[in-house]
């Protein structure tokens, strides 16, 4: 069996070569028709799948760390978790981190990932000072913000070349703990109000109960927080629990999802409560369970993540949440988040507005539902996140990404469209 993505769907045969040095990479690029770089396999869909896969996690040396100024240079196969193991105890943290630390640095750039502080800090590319990349020609280029190669590559889904090394700037911290405030809301209007009230706080995210009906639609737990200032920099990664096999698919029927949502929601105190939590609990709750993707059963799952412009968010979300609630195809986890302005990158996902992310197990009728949701997203001027996607149509994708033609031109000008492709890039023709 070959490499699979986080959603375990689709499963295709592939031939994997590990990236170990630039010389053999050069030979590989010259002698391979078409391939896609692959990091730690945390993209949900088919964005890092193809018949030929370049496995980059083996290219993972730290190259330089300026501890005074918090500037770190690494090879691109280093995991964010490895960076955290090294920098937290010295008083630094990632400026931007997604909800898992088990992704590579190269993957973070290629997906231009974002986190709970997008509304204050933007995407991962904001902390990238410069990076080096091997192009389809085999040439190694270095680039920084302002260069076209930079803006095509950040968010470019690995389709512009093989990111080799990156220099990132870190954020100073004085504690490995977070002071968290949890706000429990009763409906979507309250949820939006809470986001607005707390928008000056560094980190925020909401967990939405997708199966709530009628006037309860959009009820959530909003968690906001920022680093404490207690000088305690002790950080040990939690030992991870493991799910050793795929759950049978009936394990996740709508009843059990309901129970789960209810437990989480019910556990939180009414109104506003405060907690002091660790970095892992606050930023990476799901990393505590290794292979949590297996709970969706062997047919796999997908995550549907879209974003809507702020003015349209309330109407759009209400419409989509109603459709999901009516379908009964529940999501284990639905995450709502407020974003700030979009950046200059060609294919980065965020724009100013609200994004919702939901998991669905792959089953008959699912793609029809998602197509119907796509129509709502398009109607309100939104877009779909490529890193999570496994099925979006070319038309829906294009409507959401107005800079797609510039990206296509850049790829074909540099012969990248001939060398670098994923199943996804071929499906949506990028």
């Amino acid at each position: 069996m070959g490499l699979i993505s986080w959603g375990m769907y689709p499963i295709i045969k592939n031939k994997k070569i590990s990236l170990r040095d630039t010389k053999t990479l050069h030979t590989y690029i010259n002698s391979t028709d078409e391939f896609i770089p692959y990091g730690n396999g945390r993209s949900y869909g088919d964005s890092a799948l193809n018949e030929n896969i370049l496995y980059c996690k083996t290219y993972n040396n730290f190259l330089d760390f300026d501890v005074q100024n918090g500037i770190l240079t690494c090879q691109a196969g280093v995991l964010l978790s490895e960076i955290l193991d090294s920098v937290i105890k010295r008083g630094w943290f990632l400026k931007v981190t997604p909800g898992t630390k088990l992704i590579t640095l190269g993957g973070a750039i290629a997906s231009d990932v974002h986190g709970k502080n997008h509304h204050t800090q933007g995407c991962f590319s904001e902390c990238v000072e410069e990076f080096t990349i091997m192009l389809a020609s085999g040439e190694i280029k270095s680039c920084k913000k302002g260069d076209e190669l930079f803006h095509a590559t950040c968010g470019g889904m690995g389709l512009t070349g093989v990111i080799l090394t990156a220099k990132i700037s870190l954020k100073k911290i004085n504690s490995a703990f977070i002071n968290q405030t949890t706000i429990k809301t009763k409906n979507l209007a309250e949820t939006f109000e809470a986001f607005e009230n707390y928008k000056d706080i560094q980190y925020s995210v909401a967990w939405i109960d997708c199966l709530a009906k009628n006037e309860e639609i959009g009820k959530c737990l909003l968690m906001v927080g920022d680093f404490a200032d207690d000088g305690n920099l002790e950080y040990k990664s939690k030992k991870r629990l493991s799910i050793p096999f795929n759950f049978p698919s009936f394990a996740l029927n709508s009843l059990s999802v309901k129970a789960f949502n209810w437990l989480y929601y019910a556990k939180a105190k009414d109104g506003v409560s405060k907690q002091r939590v660790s970095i892992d609990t606050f930023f990476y709750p799901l990393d505590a369970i290794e292979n949590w993707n297996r709970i969706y059963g062997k047919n796999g799952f997908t995550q549907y993540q879209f974003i809507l412009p702020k003015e349209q968010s309330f109407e759009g979300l209400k419409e989509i949440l109603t459709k999901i609630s009516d379908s009964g195809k529940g999501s284990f986890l639905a995450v709502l988040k407020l974003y700030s302005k979009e950046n200059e990158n060609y294919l980065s996902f965020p724009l100013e507005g609200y994004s919702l992310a939901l998991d669905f197990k792959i089953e008959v009728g699912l793609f029809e539902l998602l197509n119907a949701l796509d129509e709502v997203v398009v109607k309100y001027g939104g877009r779909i996140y490529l890193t999570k996607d496994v099925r979006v149509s070319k038309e829906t994708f294009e409507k959401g990404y107005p800079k797609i033609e510039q990206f296509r031109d850049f790829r074909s000008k540099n012969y990248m469209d001939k060398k670098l492709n994923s199943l996804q890039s071929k499906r949506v023709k990028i």
Partner: protein
Amino acid sequence: MSYILIIGAKSDIAKEVARVYAKNGYNLYLAARDSLSLEDLKHDIEIRSGVNVELKEFDITSYDTHEEFYRSLKKRPIGVIVISGYMVEQKTAQKEWIETLNTVNVNYTGALSILNIVANDFEKEQRGFIVGVSSVAGDRGRKANYIYGSAKAGFSAYLSGLRNRLYESGVTVLTVKPGFVETKMTENLDLPQKLTAQPQEVAEDIFNAQQKGRNVLYTKPIWMIIMLIIKHIPEFMFKKMSI
């Protein structure tokens, strides 16, 4: 902080073992042939963890250099981890004597040569730990891999005896038996994913087992059950099998 000596530091498993010990605050001696090729790893570990890493030229089959090598270490290590390994295709080894000899020398004779010296020192000091990376292949000889397997079997037996001998002096000995591991060596093999460990996983397992003072470690743990079954197949059946 104390030093750990890693023998055979060039392998993928050794690289991760080095990183794990460094992460936990240990300084390192990395010993291997052509040790200068480990400059990048030394640099990587020093940046990651802020510990000292010293590269040491060492040839496990140059037995007469081992005594002096060990004596030359500025600070005595508190733990020694032997990861050196040499594996060629069984068919090559059975045709070419030099390959068989090299397999035995690296996996068995050389490991004993350096560990005899270490064991005498640790026994005298009444402290320290020894980790030997053997293999599940040593648990039973199979036609697919018995030359390598027999050298590892010898090494496992040696470690078992050493553990017995050093028990009184408080020195712990851990025998590590990895199953399939995803490394340079296995890059082109189509290994079953659920039975195959990542080098990082093996390294974490080794560190945790050693810290707990365990005796034998199978990694992944499922290999303990697999080998238990393989060891108990009666010989009259086993000789007819291809596994």
